[in-house]
């Protein structure tokens, strides 16, 4: 054992390695990404690591490995689980041989996600046991226990941290290499009565699953991480139930205070019913502090009904705790203060002056980076289609930020790969509209290819714009099939986007550098005017990954302060300083887009600038 300062996601990876991990695969998504990346970084060569093309592929690769006796982890964010739900729902009926942990990171807030969906529901829906860690140390220890449970009960298990656990850092106790468990998979052993799903097998499996989950509920009632802590306040008949990071806020708020009874739920499914009865039996009132959905709250209401307990359960369902967004130490302090009837002094309200006369703060929405080629692509399409009736369907990635003013080039965004199909639907109802779908290269491979096939087969009229910056930029630059690099460090043949689209049968597939603005605009005009399903690949590397060129230079004698550069591009590298348009040299990458937009040629780049 030794101490290390680790991020929650790194602790999960390191814990899985200590548990004898043989294979890990997943698809990047904040806040889950670092689990797989850390495993790759710490791989001594004995672990197979892959970024799969999407979560469904990852779940299936993981299933095959777990069938073969490997200790397997599959990683994704909560919305990725929706993509993987088809194999997931059947996999529970089949079960596994090697321990299989499905690591799904939830995102209360949401901070970097489309939804606030709660994977604890997916656990009960798919009937899979679920582990919910509350600290970095617990994540490290619990992931190892999750593998043991999975293997013992031949079932995949969920491991469900939330953003504040994934991205917290702590100095924690980690095992030395000698303490690691070793797992040698025996390989796949044929047995069609076990590995082939059929209605009769499923009937029997369903019986067994329900029986096992009832047993697991009892076992989880004795699991040390599902703690029932008696009240320290004399005669107190109140209790608080919590989980995950919220549990740590509860402990923080109660530090040094006489506390009510506490119930920490680390396995939301199967719910530790006996532990719950033990917690509830002498209490009049229980406050549930949860993030996302009131899962514990509903379970406790159910337990009260089932065991005829006269305890009032309050929380999100009763309007005592806010129903959306993440909890904070402050919000939990308020919720507990109200519940316990603390006066203002006891509630430890912040002892600072209220911010009177605070100056108006600049708003800082996330923006496309200075030099981002997506800005050029959006601007080119905008210029080319000026005055025409259009729809610009966006997708998930950095380029969702194309929605911001002044570009304002994202009319819809739903989920990974949706844009290409939404554009078709709009076109069916509104045939006069020129329909565009924008998709990034990684998202293209993850889930837009089927949409392109659908468009060709059904004779749609649309233009697919592939924004190819040759990386998965939003989540931190992971490789994908188009990059020719794998997480095992191999250099492999790139899957060529143009070849895929031509193979599918698009009528036109053109590739252009978006930073050559005139050429890009002409290409869009020409391609969009054709009938059928066409594609333009805007190819230019992510600005973060290339060495920046010399910053642009504004000639003060030529600049007429019209601000066209700012008002049409919204590049963070162009600012106003002392009333004049100025290049921020610390941000400008010298991409040259603004030099092509300036109406008086006042901005120059590269050799010209010298």
């Amino acid at each position, binding site marked *: 054992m030794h101490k290390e300062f680790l991020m929650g996601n790194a602790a999960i990876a390191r814990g899985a390695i200590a548990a004898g991990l043989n294979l890990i695969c997943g698809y990047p998504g904040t806040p889950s990404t670092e689990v797989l990346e850390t495993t790759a970084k710490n791989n001594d060569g004995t672990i197979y690591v892959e970024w799969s093309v999407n979560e469904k592929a990852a779940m299936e690769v993981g299933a095959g490995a777990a069938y073969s006796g490997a200790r397997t982890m599959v990683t994704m964010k909560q919305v990725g689980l929706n993509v993987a739900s088809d194999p997931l729902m059947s996999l529970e009926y089949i079960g596994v041989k090697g321990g299989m942990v499905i690591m799904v990171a939830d995102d209360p807030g949401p901070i970097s996600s489309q939804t606030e969906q709660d994977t604890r529901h997916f656990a009960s829906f798919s009937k899979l046991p679920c582990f919910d860690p509350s600290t970095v140390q617990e994540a490290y220890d619990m992931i190892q226990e999750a593998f043991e449970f999975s293997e013992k009960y031949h079932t995949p298990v969920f491991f469900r941290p939330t953003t504040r656990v994934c991205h917290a850092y702590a100095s924690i106790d980690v095992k030395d290499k000698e303490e690691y468990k070793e797992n040698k998979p025996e390989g796949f052993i044929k047995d069609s009565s076990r590995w082939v799903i059929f209605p009769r097998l499923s009937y029997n499996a369903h019986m067994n699953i329900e029986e096992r989950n009832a047993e697991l509920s009892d076992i989880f009632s004795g699991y040390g991480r599902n703690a029932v802590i008696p009240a320290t306040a004399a005669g107190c008949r109140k209790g608080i139930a919590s989980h995950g990071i919220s549990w740590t806020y509860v402990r923080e708020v109660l530090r040094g205070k006489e506390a009510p009874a506490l119930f920490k739920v680390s396995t939301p499914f199967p719910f530790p019913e006996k532990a719950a009865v033990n917690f509830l039996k002498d209490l009049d009132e229980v406050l549930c502090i949860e993030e996302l959905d009131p899962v514990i709250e509903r379970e406790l209401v159910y337990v009260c009904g089932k065991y005829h307990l006269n305890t009032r359960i309050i929380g999100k369902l009763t309007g005592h705790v806010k129903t959306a967004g993440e909890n904070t*130490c402050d919000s939990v302090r308020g919720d507990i203060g109200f519940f316990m009837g603390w006066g203002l002094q006891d509630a430890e309200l912040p002892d600072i002056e209220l911010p009177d006369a605070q100056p108006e703060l600049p708003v800082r929405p996330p923006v496309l980076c200075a030099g981002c080629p997506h800005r050029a692509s959006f601007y080119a399409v905008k210029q080319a289609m000026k005055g025409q009736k259009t729809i610009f369907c966006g997708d998930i990635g950095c380029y969702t930020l194309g929605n911001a003013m002044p570009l304002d080039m994202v009319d819809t965004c739903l989920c990974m790969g949706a844009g290409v199909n939404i554009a078709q639907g709009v076109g069916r109802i509104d045939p006069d509209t020129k329909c565009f779908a924008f998709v990034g290269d990684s998202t293209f491979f993850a889930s837009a290819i089927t949409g392109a096939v659908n468009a060709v087969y059904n004779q749609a009229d649309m233009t697919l714009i592939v924004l190819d910056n040759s990386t998965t930029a939003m989540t931190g630059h992971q490789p994908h099939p188009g990059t020719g690099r794998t997480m095992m460090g191999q250099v492999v043949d790139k899957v060529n986007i143009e070849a895929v689209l031509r193979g599918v049968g698009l009528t036109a597939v053109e590739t252009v550098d978006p930073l050559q603005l005139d050429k890009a605009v002409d290409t869009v005009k020409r391609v969009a005017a054709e009938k059928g399903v066409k594609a333009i690949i805007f190819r230019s590397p992510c600005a973060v990954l290339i060495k920046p060129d010399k910053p642009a230079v504004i000639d003060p004698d030529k600049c007429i302060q019209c601000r066209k550069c700012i008002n049409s591009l919204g590049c963070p590298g162009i600012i106003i300083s002392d009333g004049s348009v100025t290049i921020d040299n610390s941000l400008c990458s010298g991409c040259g887009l603004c030099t092509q937009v300036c109406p008086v040629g006042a901005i120059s780049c590269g050799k010209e600038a010298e």
Partner: protein
Amino acid sequence: MINNILLCGVGGQGTVLTSKLVAACAMEKGFSVMSAETIGMAQKGGSVFSFLRIAEGEQICTPMFGTGMADIIIAFEPAEAVRMLSYLRKDGTVIVNSRPVMPVTAALKASDYNGKEMLDYLSTKVGNLTVVDGDRICRELGSPRALNMILLGVAVKSGVLPFTTDDAVEAMKRSVKPQFIELNEKALRYEV
């Protein structure tokens, strides 16, 4: 006693790296450390923060803390200091870089945000305020990359953190590439 530290700034300014160095120094001294920071979409030019907590033994139960609890705020940008000021405890310390970072939204609105009114506001609200002309010192040291170490150096000298400048220099030497050691040491030891 728990030491609560808040670092804040704009995505890309280096708050996360600084928070890691503070953690390394504290761990070297035998303290337990927890921290939490912004990762993801907001890093692209948005407001970012790191919460950092240092204590002996196992006292810290959560990486986050509430308003009115920070012993020190190390702000890389004036408006970000104001944004996070409610986290400062009474008599807490604020170290702030004077250079404003103008967001695209401000440029679009032709706003003349220049950070001055933020610094004025801070000086009326905070007793223990140190304004650092990071831009000037960076030019003097010859690199814009020195900002985080300059601010950390000032914070260490304020005496609020449980380690010395020498400790910070040693921790920095272990974590940066050899060619950056000299610059970072000068930045950490810079007398404002």
